[in-house]
């Protein structure tokens, strides 16, 4: 029944490694988002998309790529991971009912870059 799922839930990689985080939503929402959560910074938007094939740059995009392959699936790519990208990553989806969005979040992926 969970409407936003993420995989893997935990990931450890080394500096320079290649990482892909996956997100799937079954809400039939148009918008999907990738955030990172760090103590003292809250949630910061990395990239977002309003449909398959679309990508919008967020507020902290450096070092990240993203791709929306279908309405349901949104991927975050770290091609040369660095220790500064150690963080808790959340995916979210939303629709714009009456012009005001409610974002539904997944359970998160904890990424550690050694």
């Amino acid at each position: 029944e969970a409407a936003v799922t993420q995989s893997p839930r935990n990931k450890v990689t080394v500096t320079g490694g290649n990482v892909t985080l996956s997100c799937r939503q079954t809400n039939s929402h148009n918008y999907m988002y990738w955030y990172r959560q760090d103590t003292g910074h809250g949630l910061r938007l990395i990239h977002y998309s309003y449909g398959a094939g679309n990508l919008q740059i967020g507020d902290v995009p450096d070092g990240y790529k993203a791709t929306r392959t279908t309405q349901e699936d949104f991927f975050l790519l770290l091609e040369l991971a660095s220790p500064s990208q150690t963080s808790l990553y959340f995916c979210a989806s939303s629709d714009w009912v009456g012009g005001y969005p409610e974002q539904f979040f997944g359970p998160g992926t904890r990424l550690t870059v050694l």
Partner: protein
Amino acid sequence: QQQVRQSPQSLTVWEGETAILNCSYEDSTFNYFPWYQQFPGEGPALLISIRSVSDKKEDGRFTIFFNKREKKLSLHITDSQPGDSATYFCAARTSSGQKLVFGQGTILKVYL
């Protein structure tokens, strides 16, 4: 640059007390302010929200007070319960954007 700021960073109250969480913002075009609640090991979930045309929004024990002139809002949790222990995020949306800007969060602990 933090466009949405929250205080305090952490707050401890006793069961039954009122917890007050504060939020301020800089961008006068922000027109929608949701508060999200996050429990350990979970993603945030929408708790309550307010639009800038209102100065108060109530939902059970949770109330948002909004002061547009001062660009401040607060979340009041009355009769606090241990189950309210969580991190609370204030967020804001611009009138032209399709994204939210989040504050850094307030960690609330409610003791018996």
